């Protein structure tokens, strides 16, 4: 290896070490007794213990952590299903169909891309309250099924536009309708966009705090971020280790998604590299 290459690796790793330090520190901290955590500079626990995780698994307020995981999973999975379906449908219409008002509606969709959601939440809350839907998952999920996340609609449009039109033409000749073309041709070819949408929707839903904070009030229905906040309020200071351990457990699915997504990327790059 050339000297410059070694220097480059050393430089990158040094910067990376600073960025990843908080993660390494907290993972190590979860294996320390609570009282050693706050001031503990050394990464390796002197007396490793799993007591933090044992307490984290017990949960809070008499509700086990499994319940919060389940709630988060339900919300995330339904969000993915709703977002992927509704954005793919809208993307197909915007990218492949011609109809009156398409241009205006597309412009409207783009203009909602960067709209701060704060101008929407108060009336939304008032309506859901009127409909007696507070403390249910409906307010958190309805928008996902109605393609409210313009970012993903835009992603679908961009991707579907690149699919050659000859494919639709030949399918049309074979007698396929729009649904057939959408289902059998566009969707399979748009897989990368569907996967990207799924991954981001899952992670955003998993991390979402604001939505559950305003809409949910029964701890039994809390997803993990809200449960963590409850834990902060109830155990502030006293059970630091368990709080850290629970925070880490809450991140596991996101980390797994990230690792899996990475492999997906690397595979794509290496196969195209082989072909090239």
């Amino acid at each position, binding site marked *: 290896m050339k000297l410059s290459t070694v220097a480059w690796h050393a430089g990158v790793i040094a910067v990376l070490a600073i960025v990843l330090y908080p993660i390494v520190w907290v993972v190590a*901290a979860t294996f320390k007794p609570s009282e050693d955590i706050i001031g503990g500079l050394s990464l390796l626990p002197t007396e490793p213990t799993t007591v933090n995780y044992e307490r984290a698994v017990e949960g809070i307020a008499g509700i086990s952590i499994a319940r919060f995981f389940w709630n988060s999973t339900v919300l995330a999975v339904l969000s993915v299903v709703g977002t992927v379906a509704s954005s793919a449908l809208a993307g197909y219409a915007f990218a492949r169909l011609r*109809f009156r008002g398409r241009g205006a509606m597309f412009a*409207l969709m783009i203009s909602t891309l960067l709209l701060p959601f704060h*101008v929407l*939440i108060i009336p939304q809350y008032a309506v859901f309250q009127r409909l007696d839907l507070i403390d249910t998952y409906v307010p958190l999920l309805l928008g996902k099924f109605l393609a409210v996340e313009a970012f993903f609609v835009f992603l679908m449009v961009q991707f579907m536009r690149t699919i050659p039109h000859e494919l639709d033409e030949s399918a049309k000749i074979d007698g396929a309708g729009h649904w057939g073309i959408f289902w059998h041709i566009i969707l399979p070819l748009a897989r990368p966009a569907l996967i990207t949408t799924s991954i981001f929707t899952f992670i955003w839903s998993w991390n979402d705090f*604001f939505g559950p904070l305003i809409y949910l009030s029964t701890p039994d229905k809390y997803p993990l971020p809200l449960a963590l906040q409850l834990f902060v309020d109830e155990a502030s200071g006293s059970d630091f280790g368990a709080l850290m351990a629970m925070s880490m457990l809450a991140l596991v699915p996101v980390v797994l998604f990230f690792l899996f997504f990475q492999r997906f990327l690397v595979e794509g790059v290496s196969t195209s590299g082989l072909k090239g």
Partner: protein
Amino acid sequence: MATVAPTRQAEASGQPAGPRTRARRSGDGVAGYLFLSPWILGVLLLTIGPMLTSLYLSFTDYNLFTAPEWVGLDNYKRMFEDARWLKSVQVTAIYVAVAVPVKLAAALAVAVLLNNKRKGQGFYRAAFYGPSLIGASVSLAIVWKALFTDDAVVDRMLRVVGINTGGWAGNPDFSLMMLVLLGAWQLGAPMVIFLAGLKQVPVELHEAAHVDGAGRWLRFRAITLPMISPVVFFNLLLETINAFQVFTSAYIVGGPNGSPAGTTLFYTIYLYDRGFSDFRMGYASAMAWMLLLGVGLITLFLFRTARGWVYYSGDRR
């Protein structure tokens, strides 16, 4: 569903020539609206409707339980006499003005560092990107608070090298800075975008300048920066708009009152507090519209200044 479209098409082809022909050639109205129906419902019921309603509510006194009462511009006037509102504007403005440049500079520096063809680049890119997926979560805010608690890890480490801030999380002078650092820690997302931009810079330009004796810094300033200026602008716009809306980390670190001493009372936190703790929903709506106005003006301002420093290829300047 699969049979709907062909039937309709058959019907259409049976129609005499006329306006129909054009409709048929120019596509499929019904199918278009059908595919778009979830989005249309969403945009009407969850975007345009609420937007107009909140604009109306911003001119009323409304507490969710009694009918809104028209008060004209009162809510807007009251904001400028509301010390907490002014504080929240100040906190948010400082945060945007500091956090965005810090984050973008860090992201660009790492991107430049990573931008070379050596083995391992993909791995490093992923490793730097990772934190931006978890950075805005409650978990990470909890971890951050633990790291920056007074007399905790960061405090002690800095004292080893002779820096004493007198605490972070509990110190009004540094509590906001700790959130700026949390923002910068999520440099991965803009970094990936910068890296994509850097790959587009032609190597020949650098080589030619190198031959002419231009040093690294000069080449970066005279070639790289102008070439990637559209990407810089894109990142700047996105990060600025996002920075205005920080909520989760600030709420976990400082709570609904922005402790210590209101130094982490972000605009969104105060809006939440007014709207959903006090149920002053007319006031909160007016606050939301002021936020939209602020973000809109900043966006406009960025687009205006962009003419002076963003270069698109083919631009004759």
